[in-house]
C-alpha cells in the first residue's frame, strides 16, 4: 500500500485527493485517459470510459502506460478486473484501420483477421463494406467512411482513420499576432488537433476557442467552412477572424437565413443547414460548394443530429470540433468521437482559471421565501404551472434590484426565461431587454453599447445563452431558467467567465423561490457548479437586505 493520492474504485471511478502532494502530477498523468466527472473542493472524480480510453489510444498512449499510472498513484491495490478491462478495452482501438490502398482505394485493414470476420459478419455493416480482398482487407465504399466508423464504434471496434484527407483548395491565411499571441494552451490545442488530423478541442467558455479555430485555419491555410450555432455567433466569428488574421472582409462569407455568400472562408449556421423544404435539405450543396480543406464545428455539443449525418459524408475533410464540454444532453458523445474525431485537447476550467485566463467566479444562490399568498397559489397550482409560478415570483424583482444596486456600475446581465418577467424586470431596473424578437441589428447595437460600457445593465432571455461575446459582464443574475440543464449552466457561466481587465471576481447569482420546484432545479445547478469546482454559497434574501 503506497500513500498515493488516487483511489481506484471498482466501478471505474478514480478519486483524486486534491490536497495531496502528488495530486498535481497524478492529475496530469490520468488526464489523457480519464474523464473528469466532477471537481469539487477536496476530491475530484474521474471516470474511465471506453471512449476516454480510446481517446487516449488515439493520442498515442498504450494500456501499459495507463496501468502503470494507476498502479503508481493508487493508494490501495487496484482491482485486478479493472486493469484487465482497461487493457482489453484499449487493445480494441486500432485493430481495424481505415487506409488508402493504391489499388482498391479506401479499405478497412485489420491487424487481427478474426476481428475483421466478426465485423464483416455483423448485420450492421451490411451495405457499408464492399468486396473482401484478402483475410485482412476489405473494400469500403468511400461514401460510407463516416457511417462505417460510427458502426464500428458501436460494435466495440473503433477504427483508426489513417486514410488521410483531401488537401482542399489552398488559401493563404496568417495570424496577425500584433500585440497579442496565442496562449500556450491554445498553441497546444492547435498542435494537438493538427497532429491528430481531425478531432475535438475542449476548452471552457472564454478560453478563446475562436482563436484556436483561427490558429487551425492558419496552420491549414486552405478554404474553410465554419459551422456555428446562430447568426450573432457567425458575425462574431467574422469580426474576430478579420481582427486576428490576414483575412479580409471580402474573403469571408456568411451563409445564413439572411445572406447566402460562399467565399474562401464561409461561416454557416446550423439552422440554415438543417432547413428542410419539402423534406429535402435545401442547402446541402454548400458542403460541396468548394473543395474545403478544413471544416470547423463551433459548439460541438449542440451539433444537431442531421448535421451528424451530413458530417458522415465529410470524412475526407479535416474536421475541427470546438466545445466547452463533451457532455451532450442527448448522449451522442460517441458520434462526436466517430464522426468528428477523438478528443485532441482538453483543459479543465479550473486550470485555465488558475492561469488567469478566465475570471474566478463566485456563485451565490439567493433564497427567497415566498409570502403566504404566493405559497398558497403555488400549492394549489397545476403541476405544469408550478415552475412558472415559482420562477416568476414577484419577490424576485426586489432581490434583483438589490443585487443590481449592490454591483452598481459593474456590467451586469440579468438572465431569465419568461418574457413577462423579463419585461417587468427591465422596467424595474431600467435596463434594455434583448429577446428572440429583438432584431439582429438592435441586438448588435445593444451588445456593442454594453461592451463599450455605455450601458451597464442588460436583461436577456435564453437567446443570450449561446455564442454571444460579452467581455465585460462581471455580474450575472439568473432569475429563471429551463430545467437545470448542465449545458445551459455551462453556457451561462461562460457569459461572465471572460477575463476581466482588472482581475475582478465575477459574480453569478441565481435567485430561487424557497420550498418550490425552483429550488429543486437550483439544486441541479448547485451540483453542477460545485462539481466544476466553483465556490457555491447560499444566502437568504432577507439576509441580503441586512447586508446592505
Amino acid at each position, binding site marked *: 500500500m503506497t500513500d498515493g493520492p488516487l483511489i481506484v474504485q471498482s466501478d471505474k471511478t478514480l478519486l483524486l485527493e486534491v490536497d495531496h502532494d502528488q495530486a498535481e502530477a497524478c492529475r496530469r498523468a490520468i488526464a489523457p485517459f480519464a474523464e473528469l466527472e466532477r471537481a469539487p473542493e477536496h476530491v475530484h472524480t474521474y471516470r474511465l470510459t471506453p471512449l476516454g480510453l480510446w481517446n487516449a489510444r488515439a493520442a498515442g498512449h498504450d494500456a501499459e502506460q495507463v496501468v502503470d499510472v494507476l498502479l503508481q498513484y493508487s493508494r*490501495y491495490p487496484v482491482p*485486478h478486473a479493472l486493469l484487465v478491462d482497461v487493457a482489453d478495452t484499449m487493445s480494441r482501438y486500432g485493430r481495424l484501420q481505415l487506409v488508402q490502398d493504391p489499388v482498391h482505394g479506401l479499405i478497412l485493414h485489420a491487424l487481427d483477421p478474426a476481428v475483421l470476420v466478426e465485423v464483416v459478419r455483423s448485420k450492421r455493416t451490411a451495405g457499408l463494406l464492399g468486396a473482401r480482398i484478402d483475410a485482412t482487407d476489405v473494400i469500403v465504399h468511400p461514401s460510407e467512411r463516416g457511417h462505417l466508423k460510427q458502426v464500428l464504434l458501436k460494435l466495440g471496434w473503433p477504427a483508426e482513420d489513417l486514410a488521410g484527407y483531401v488537401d482542399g483548395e489552398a488559401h493563404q491565411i496568417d495570424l496577425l499576432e500584433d500585440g497579442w499571441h496565442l496562449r500556450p494552451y491554445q498553441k497546444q490545442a492547435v498542435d494537438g488537433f493538427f497532429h491528430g488530423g481531425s478531432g475535438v478541442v475542449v476548452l471552457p467558455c472564454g478560453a478563446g476557442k475562436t482563436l484556436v479555430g483561427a490558429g487551425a485555419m492558419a496552420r491549414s491555410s486552405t478554404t474553410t467552412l465554419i459551422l456555428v450555432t446562430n447568426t450573432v455567433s457567425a458575425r462574431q466569428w467574422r469580426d474576430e477572424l478579420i481582427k486576428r488574421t490576414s483575412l479580409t472582409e471580402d474573403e469571408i462569407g456568411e451563409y445564413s437565413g439572411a445572406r447566402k455568400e460562399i467565399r474562401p472562408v464561409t461561416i454557416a449556421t446550423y439552422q440554415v443547414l438543417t432547413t428542410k423544404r419539402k423534406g429535402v435539405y435545401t442547402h446541402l450543396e454548400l458542403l460541396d460548394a468548394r473543395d474545403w480543406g478544413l471544416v470547423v464545428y463551433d459548439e460541438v455539443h449542440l451539433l444537431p443530429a442531421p448535421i451528424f449525418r451530413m458530417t458522415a459524408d465529410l470524412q475526407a475533410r479535416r474536421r475541427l470540433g470546438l466545445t466547452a464540454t463533451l457532455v451532450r444532453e442527448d448522449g451522442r458523445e460517441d458520434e462526436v468521437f466517430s464522426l468528428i474525431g477523438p478528443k485532441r485537447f482538453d483543459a479543465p476550467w479550473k486550470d485555465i482559471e488558475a492561469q488567469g485566463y478566465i475570471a474566478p467566479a463566485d456563485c451565490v444562490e439567493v433564497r427567497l421565501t415566498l409570502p403566504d399568498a404566493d405559497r398558497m397559489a403555488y400549492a394549489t397550482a397545476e403541476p405544469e404551472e408550478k415552475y412558472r409560478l415559482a420562477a416568476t415570483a414577484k419577490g424576485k424583482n426586489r432581490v434583483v434590484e438589490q443585487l443590481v444596486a449592490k454591483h452598481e456600475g459593474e456590467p451586469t446581465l440579468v438572465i431569465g426565461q419568461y418574457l413577462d418577467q423579463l419585461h417587468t424586470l427591465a422596467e424595474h431596473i431600467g435596463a434594455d431587454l434583448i429577446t428572440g424578437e429583438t432584431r439582429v441589428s438592435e441586438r448588435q447595437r445593444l451588445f456593442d453599447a454594453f461592451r463599450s460600457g455605455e450601458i451597464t445593465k442588460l436583461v436577456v432571455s435564453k437567446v443570450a445563452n449561446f455564442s454571444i461575446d460579452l467581455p465585460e459582464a462581471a455580474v450575472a443574475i439568473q432569475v429563471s431558467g429551463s430545467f437545470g440543464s448542465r449545458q445551459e449552466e455551462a453556457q451561462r457561466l461562460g457569459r461572465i467567465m471572460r477575463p476581466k481587465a482588472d482581475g475582478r471576481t465575477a459574480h453569478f447569482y441565481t435567485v430561487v423561490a424557497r420550498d418550490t420546484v425552483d429550488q429543486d432545479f437550483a439544486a441541479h445547478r448547485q451540483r453542477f457548479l460545485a462539481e466544476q469546482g466553483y465556490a457555491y454559497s447560499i444566502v437568504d434574501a432577507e439576509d441580503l437586505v441586512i447586508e446592505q
Partner: protein
Amino acid sequence: MSSFIGYLRDRSDDELVALLRSRPDLASPSPATLSSLAVRATSRSSLERALAGSDASVLQVLEAVTALSDGGTVRASDLPAAVGAKDEAEVAAVERALRLAIVAALVYPDDEAPDGEHATTGGAASDRPDGATAALLASPGLAEVLGPYPAGLAGPDAGNRRAAVAPMDQPTPEEIPGLLEAAPTGAKPVLDALLWGPPVGLAPSNNTAAAAAVDWLIRRRLLAPGDARHVVLPRTVALTLRGGRTHAAPATSPPIPADAPHRAPGLVAAESAAAGERATLLVARLIRLWEQTPPAVLRGGGLGVRELRRAAQLLEVDEAEAAFVIELAGAAGFIADDGEEPASFAPTVAVDEWSSRDVPDRWAALARTWTTMLRTPWLVGGRDDRGGVRAALDPELQRAWAPRLRRSVLDALAQTKPGTALDAPGVLAVLRWRTPRSVPPVAAVAAVLAEAGRLGILGAGALSDAGRALLAESAPPVSRKSDTADPADALAAALPRAVDEILLQGDLTGVVPGRPSAALEDLLDRVTHVESRGGALTVRFTPESVRRALDAGATADGLLAELAGHSRGPVPQPLEYLVRDAARRHGRLRAGSASSYLRADDPSLLAGLTEDSRLASLGLVRLAPTVLASQAPASELVDMLRAHGLAPVVEGPDGQVLHIAASARRVGRRAAVAARRRETASPREQLSDERLLALVPALRRAEEERRLDESERLPGSLLTASRQSTHGSPTAPALGDAGAAAEDTPSDLGSTHEGVRADGASQPPAADAEPLAPGSTGTADPVDALVLLREAAAEKVAVWVELVGSSGVPDRRLLRPVLVEGGRLRAIDPARESELTVAVHRIASVTRDVPAAALPTTTHHEEST
C-alpha cells in the same frame, strides 16, 4: 486364490480403520458384520463412489490390475512398467497409488498365491505396498464398474460372443511380430488406431483397401470380428503391440498450468477483503430491503423474476449476483417463507444475532454457509426441463453435489502455490486428474469460482488466506490440522485500516478515503446515500437521506455536529443548508392514530369533555378547538357519552385516519432453524477416528457370533429342506423371503444399498435352509451368496446355484456368473449353452464348484469349518 471376504477377515484392526476412513460410506450406517462390510464394499454404488473419489493415478493402477489380472497374474512390481513409469519419481507415484488402492480394498494381494510366496500383510501405512511379489486381484465387482475396456483393452474373450464357452484362441505374443512383418500396407494404421483403445472399430465397407487389410488381420487373428459391423483388437495383440504396457504414460501429478497467473499477496488480500465485506453488506442490505417490503412467494415456492430484478436494482448488482446474495441469505436461514397467507419471504430472527456481530464474523458465518449449502444459485434464470424459468429460492435448486463441488474446486486451488489464480479450465484440469470419473461441467466450476470470488474466498482469482482458513476448518476431522486459523481472523487481518475521517464537499458529496470505521459507517448509513464503494466510500447527501436520519430521531444540530466531528474541514455551507432545510420541513405535518373522533361547533362543550375525569378511559385528546380524538372505538365512545347524558351521533367512516406502521417483519425461530436445515447439508456425521476404532472390533465380534450361531444350527440340510418344501409348502424358503423378512427388522445394511434387497438379512430367518459358513465353498446366507457370486463373476469360474422357480421347485445348476447388479444375476449356463438372468431373491444358495465333490450337500459339510 483367496476370497475377498477371507481377505477382509484377515485384516488387522488398523487396516480396517484405514479402509473405513478412505471409504466413509462403508461405515455409515454401521455394517453389522465383516461380511456385510464386504458386500457393501463390493456393491456397485460403493465402488462407483470409491472410484469417483480416486485420482487418475489410482485409476490407472486399478485399470492395470483389472486388465492384467484377468487371465494372468499381476504383481505390484509389474505395475510401474505397465503404466509406463520411467523414473524414480514416477515409480514412487505408482507405488503410492497402489497403496491407496489397497487401503481402499479396491485391489488386494492374493494371499494364497500359487507360487507359495506368502504376501506380507503389513500395515496399510507401511512404506511399501503389500506383498510386492504377491499376485494382485481386483476386488469383486471392480471390473464391471470400470467398464468393458479397462485401459482400452478388450476382454480376453471379447469380440467373439460365440466364444462364451470356449474362448477364442488368440495368437501368442511370440507369434505376433512375425505375423506383423508380413502385414500388407494399410494393416498397420488399423492396428494403430485401435491400439490405445477403445479397442473396437467400425469395420470398413466391403471391397475397399481397408477392408482387405482388416480381412487379412482377421485371418491372422490379429483382429477379431465383433458383431456384424465391428472388429475388436484382441487383448493379447494389443498388449504385445504396447510392449506389455497398459498405459502410455503414468498420470503422476495434477497438471497445474505453467502459465497460470500469479497474484501479489497484497492484491489477493485486498480484493478478498473487499469482496468479503461487500458480500456481507449485500446480504445485510437485502435483509433491510425485505424487512420493509417482503416479496411474495411463488406458488412453486420461489421468488418471482420481477422481485429478483427489483432486488438486483436496489442492491445495484446484476441479477446473477442478486440471485447469489438471495440464495446465500436463504441458505443461512436469514430469509424464509413466513408461511402466512399470502406467503412472503421475510427475514428471520436469526438475522438479529448475525447483524450484531462485526464484519469478519458475519462474513465467516456466510462463508461457512456457502461451503455447505446445497443451493445452486447460478442455475437461477436458466430453464428447467419443462422450459420454465428457474426462480431464486426455488426448492428444486437443491443439488446434493453442490457442497462437494465447492470443496473440490477450493481443494484444487489450495494445491497450487499461494497466489496462483486458476481459471475454470485450469481448475478443471486439476479436477480431471484428481477425480477423473466425476469431472464437473466447466460451467459449474466457473460458477463456483465466481461465487468464491464474490464472497472473497478468492481474491483476484487466487485463494485468499481467509479462504484457506475456511477450507482447513471444514476439512474432515480425520485430515484436519490442529493449528488452522480462524477464517474470521484471517479476513479481519486482510481488511484495510479503518478511516475515521470524511471529506465533505460543496456538491453535497462526501468521500471517506478508505474503509470507514464502524462509527462513521453507521453515521453515513443513516444520513447519506452511498454512491460508490471500493477502496474508498463516496456518499451523497440528499434531502431524502437527511430526512431518513431525522425520521430516526436525529436533529439538525446533532447531525451537523457529528459530521463536523468526522470532517477534516468545516461542514460546507450548502450541506449545512441542506440539513437545516430538511430539518425545517421535517415534522411540519403530524400524524397519529386514533380510533374515533368527536367534533362539535362548540369548543366549550369539547373542552368540558376533556376535563371530565369520568371520561378518562376514552383517552380524549384535543386536536383542535372543535375536534377531539379518542382512543376508544366509535361505538364505545358513543355508548359512554350517551351514558353520561349526551346525545352524540355517529358519522360515516370517511375521514378516519389509518396509520400503517412500517414494521420489520420476522418469522419465528422455528422456521429459521427449519430453513437452515433445509438449505444446508446436514452436518454429516463426521467420522471421527474414535468412532471408527470402536466400530471395527464390533464388526469382528458380530462376525464371530454369527459364525458360532450358524455352526450350532449346522445339521439343517438344504436338500431336505427343499425336498420338504416341494411336498409341503409351495413357497420355498428362498433368499427373497429372507429379504422380505429383513425389511421388517431395520438392519444396518439398509435395503437402499443398490437394488439387492436380499443382502439385508444378517440372520436368515429361513433357519431350516442350510446356512453355510461364509468364506467356505458354499452358502445359503444371502450376504455371503452375493459375495460368492461376485467373486465367481470376477474370477470367471462356475458355481452351483440353487434357484427357486416360480412354482417353488428348487433347481440346481452350474452357472458362470457374469454380472451381479441391480438385484439380478446374469450368468452363463455352460451345460445348456445359454445365458440367463435371475432375480437375486430366487437364489436359495450358492456353492463353489469343487471338482472332487460328488454331491453338493456333502461338500458343504466337508468344507464347513
